């Protein structure tokens, strides 16, 4: 076997077994370190204050679109058998595919509006960093390869469940099964590599705001009071302030 290994195989080995671990390691290490050491930098960095009209047409389609797309990928990863069962009926397959595709189109439209807004509005331009452009670039890349895949390598919801989900699970189980992905078409591979790149970039960019979405708000009491004195302690008789 050894003599048959080509440089292409080495590339595959690097991209689909080493890169995912580099990505995950970077992701966890840096997000945690950043949260603990530089927590101040966790913000949505909203620019709605500077420009309030185009903002709607950029943010709303983008965020709702990408939520649908990400959620779709997540379901395919977590519940492959159920997705395949759902797709056994053609109409249901079409429904799923169309929903995902519309989500993708929304994301693309949102991204284009984001770019136009950040290039055309003088104030917003001022708060757009290089890192922001890198994020926009990688997102455009991902959504374009994703939409290409959806059109030219159709029924992704089914083959994702059959080949991508086992591959991703093999990474989780620390025994990567590269054979699931090596036969995949070029554009799908690009999409996978782009995803790993995005995971690496994630902790260094504004994308971290996705990690601090305000879920506790939904079940906390409306008013928040913080005490700097220990009220319980002062209520007990043991603690008596000498006055």
């Amino acid at each position: 076997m050894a003599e048959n290994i080509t440089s292409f195989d080495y590339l595959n080995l690097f991209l689909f077994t080493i890169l995912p671990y580099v990505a995950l390691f970077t992701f966890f290490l840096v997000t945690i370190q950043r949260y603990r050491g530089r927590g101040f930098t966790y913000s949505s960095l909203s620019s709605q204050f500077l420009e309030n009209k185009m903002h709607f047409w950029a943010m709303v389609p983008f965020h709702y679109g990408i939520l649908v797309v990400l959620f779709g990928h997540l379901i395919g990863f977590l519940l492959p058998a159920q997705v395949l069962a759902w797709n056994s009926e053609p109409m249901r397959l079409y429904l799923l595919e169309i929903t995902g595709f519309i989500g993708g189109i929304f994301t693309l439209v949102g991204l284009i509006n984001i770019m136009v807004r950040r290039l055309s509005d003088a104030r917003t331009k001022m708060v757009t960093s290089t890192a922001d452009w890198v994020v926009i670039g990688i997102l455009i890349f991902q959504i374009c390869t994703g939409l290409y895949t959806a059109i030219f390598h159709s029924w992704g919801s089914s083959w994702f469940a059959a080949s991508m989900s086992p591959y991703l699970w093999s990474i989780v189980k620390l025994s990567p099964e590269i054979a699931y992905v090596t036969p995949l078409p070029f554009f799908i591979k690009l999409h996978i590599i782009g995803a790993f790149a995005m995971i690496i970039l994630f902790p260094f960019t504004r994308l971290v705001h996705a990690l601090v979405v305000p879920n506790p708000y939904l079940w906390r009491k409306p008013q928040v009071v913080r005490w700097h004195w220990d009220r319980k302690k002062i209520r007990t008789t043991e603690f008596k302030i000498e006055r």
Partner: protein
Amino acid sequence: MDVRSQISMVFHLDKCIGCHTCSVACKNIWTDRKGTEYMWWNNVETKPGTGFPTKWEDQEKYKGGWEKKNGSIQLRSTGKGRVVPNIFHHPHQPSMNDYYEPWTYKYDELFNAPEGNDQPTARPISMVTGEHMDIEAGPNWDDDLSGSPVYAKNDPNFKNLTAEQQAQLFAIERLVFFYFPRICNHCLNPSCVASCPSGALHKRGEDGIVLIDQEQCRGWRSCVAACPYKKTYYNWQTGKSEKCILCFPRIESGQAPACFHSCVGRIRYLGVLLYDADMIDDVANTPDDQLVEAHRAMVLDPNDPEVIRSAQANGIHDDVIKSAQKSPVYKFVKEWGIALPPHIEYRTLPMLFYVPPMLPVMTTMDGDAKKNMNEGLFPDFDKARAPMEFLANLFSAGNTGKMRYALKKQMAVRQYRRAVTVGDISMEAALKMLLEADCSVEEAEGIYKLTSLCTFDERFVIPPAHREEAIEMMKDPLEHKQEVGFGLREEPERGA
């Protein structure tokens, strides 16, 4: 009874001369950084006028504060259910255009301009983009512009004034205005806190100061929309919201906040109020016309032994209770009833109270005769230049009774003092006025003293923070002493 202490404030509008010293003192200390240039944690507005940000009182537009709905109160902007769908684009968010674009001037052009026939000029440049800009609005843009069809005419407090009353405000030679200095009200039922998805906004238990935890703020800006007074601001540079902190580092070391300390007209009073936190929900849910009274009823008598016992049991320091007993705010708000909360109909229960202004010239001219008295002894407040309804819309949720009471008492005190010092009014008439205004002679003297002769220590009764004892309770003070001042604090830098 859940007794808590609250640093509360009174602004005496009759004394405000609109010099903006407070605003500048605040700006120099807190908001001269990039991203905060447009913020005025303290600002002084001309009323009638549109204020800052423009028409902030128009809650149809900004959706600030609480509204009564189905028997309870709800946030007008984003409650729990609405925060998720609206998080990507907040529908009621003010933008920089509602405030103004901060600018500076290219002063070096005055020196570097090439020789020519024209005077060199310093052109304005935006502090956001650095580009040349045309100034369209700025801080205090409608300063003193009462009677202006652009600004004063759009004052949201005109909403239920008759056309006649409105016309009266714009008649030539009958213009009227007063100043309305504003800071964060450090409310008891703050809608900014209730709206914060990240839990960054909080009220300090010990003194009730409302703060934004800068490390926990994620810049969702719900507070900006939810605060009906528009006193939380979004720092577009750091991506975090900021607000008036009532100069808590100064308060903790026994000094008055900068805007209070610098006030030239000595209009500001600061002191502790003890209140019953169990009543917050019920009071915030009271019908509009009873709000002022209900709000006042929450404030507890610091000399009542029952209250003192509960306060002590609740961990309130004896020094704070002592300070509450000397509080000038308690006198104005509770004992005398002449300080009123601004826009209490927003139901945030503000803890900054205003002594309403005796608007200039109560007198009206009837031909050549000065006509300032109605049938009784008092000037006819309903014939005053600023309609009573206008003042009541601002300070008592439209409750003209409370407003009339406050004005009547102030007027009676004036007449009484005039009888004492000038003597052109008979003491008998003055005492009759006091009686009619529900004011005893001692009370009149008290109001007079605290209004006119008040010293620094009478205006600002700041309780000792006793940080040393608080530290003692949490950890070893020696250990704390060794720790403070060391370690790296994070710089407030914008994230990537």
